[in-house]
């Protein structure tokens, strides 16, 4: 499967909300879509294009925006495909994929607690790796492990 095949299948359904399909090494392509078209994109990928396996959902913090990256696999084409949508950091939410692929459930819980992206209509959006009530989102760029100064060793000359 080529990026053009993805483009041809998705463009009629998404229209302008399909922001583009670009080639990506080792996959069928990388699909960029508007978050308002999330559910249509998921359904089209699964039902029309045969990507029945959602391998991973991950978040990337680009400081002003956040990117949600879905990695899908098709047993028919024996290929991966990437889906990505970008949301503003101060309004980071996107429709859940767990209704289409149940496997997205835990991945979205992790993306929510680590990168602070809310998944609308998620059946069970609670902490997974962090304890309940944990107030931080560790994989945001603003979450610093340490300041470099703290690690400086003071040497006393005698």
């Amino acid at each position, binding site marked *: 499967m080529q990026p053009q095949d993805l483009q041809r299948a998705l463009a009629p359904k998404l229209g302008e909300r399909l922001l583009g399909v670009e080639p*990506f*090494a*080792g*996959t069928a392509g990388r699909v960029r879509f508007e978050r308002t078209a999330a559910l249509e994109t998921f359904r089209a990928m699964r039902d029309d294009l045969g990507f*029945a*396996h*959602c*391998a*991973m959902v*991950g978040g*990337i*913090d680009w400081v002003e925006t956040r990117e949600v*990256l879905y*990695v899908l*696999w098709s*047993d028919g084409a*024996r*290929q*991966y495909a*990437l889906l990505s949508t970008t949301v503003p950091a101060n309004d980071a939410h996107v429709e859940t994929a767990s209704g289409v*692929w*149940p*496997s*997205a*459930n*835990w*991945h979205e819980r992790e993306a929510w607690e*680590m990168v602070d992206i809310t998944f609308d209509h998620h059946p069970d959006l609670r*902490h*997974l*790796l*962090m*304890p309940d009530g944990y107030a931080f989102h*560790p*994989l945001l760029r603003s*979450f610093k*492990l340490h300041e470099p100064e703290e690690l400086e060793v003071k040497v006393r000359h005698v």
Partner: protein
Amino acid sequence: MSEMWINMGPQHPMTHGLWNLRVQIDGELVRAVDPEMGYLHRGIEKISEDRHYNEVITLMDRCCYVAGMAWEHLYILGAEAALQVRPPERADYLRVLCDEFQRLGSHLMWYAAFVQDLGLMSPFLYGMRDRDLVLDLFQSFTGARMTYEYMRVGGVRNDLPPGFADRSRKVLDWLDDRFREYDALCLGSTIFRKRCDGLGVLKGPEAIAHGVTGPMLRAAGVKRDLRKDRPYSAYDRVDFDVALADSADVTGRYLVRMEEMRQSVRILRQVLDWLDHHPGPVVADRLPRWLGAPYAPVGAEGYLLKRNYPKGLGLSAIEEPHGEALSYVVNDGGEHPYRVKFRSPVFANLSAASTYLVGYHVADIPPIMGSVDVCVGEVDR
């Protein structure tokens, strides 16, 4: 009052690691399950953002404590895709060698722990004994038995020591014989069959929808193996079959893992033969300076090179002993990875726990969870 929640874990012989399986029971029947993870979370993805590319390798060994080599391989492939580095051919074969020995080590560990869960004590000792032979081989060329730190961006750290191929072939011959004994001990045992047949059934379509991969998926008859479907390193140049079963239950998963070990032995024999006849470099020449020595003092030229990291996103996928492992490494042009993300196969297999546990008895949970082959290190990261 007839239904209640009980905790199996975090300290329970069934867990094989530190996690908690909350089970809702009605008498002896399992009504619902809710795995509670995070006890082993060390923030490996976050720590990676503060490290040089080669320094992340030490963390990967700690990701999965029975399959460190496979996780190194996964990360290295992602980093190489992001940094656009190609390893020499001999390094590709050495990586396959590491992966397959690691698969043997991991599956033998699984065999030992799983059969012990069923109450058969002697197979535990046999499994651990034979796994030690594999670890001895690892020690002879990496210096470590668990945390190898062997692979590098652009190749591997060092070549094999003299006499390694002969020692390996002896171990492989020995293991080939032992697999017959394992089968006789397990498949011939009434206790084993009564505790495994028809339990934890997870059929193909449901397994795919829930993201289950690896031996669990192949035990349901779905032929998906990334080594065949999307060959990486030298897997397109070796000959092997994908292990399959169709019963989709605990016994099926046992059969698949046993067959995978036989196929690993087959792959290793071919790889050892190839390595005998094709000496060569094991690290890419013309490696950028910043990849060779992270702490080397850099002059003006080195400084310029340091600024020349290609930007991009590298995706890699390998067939880890537990299933499909994925990673992406995002590079924004800095000297550390901007973002690293790993997909652990056990993570997905555990998230589907309700599909293969609900409806069975509480006493069935240890054999079923044993057949999942849980490694909490890679789930929690």
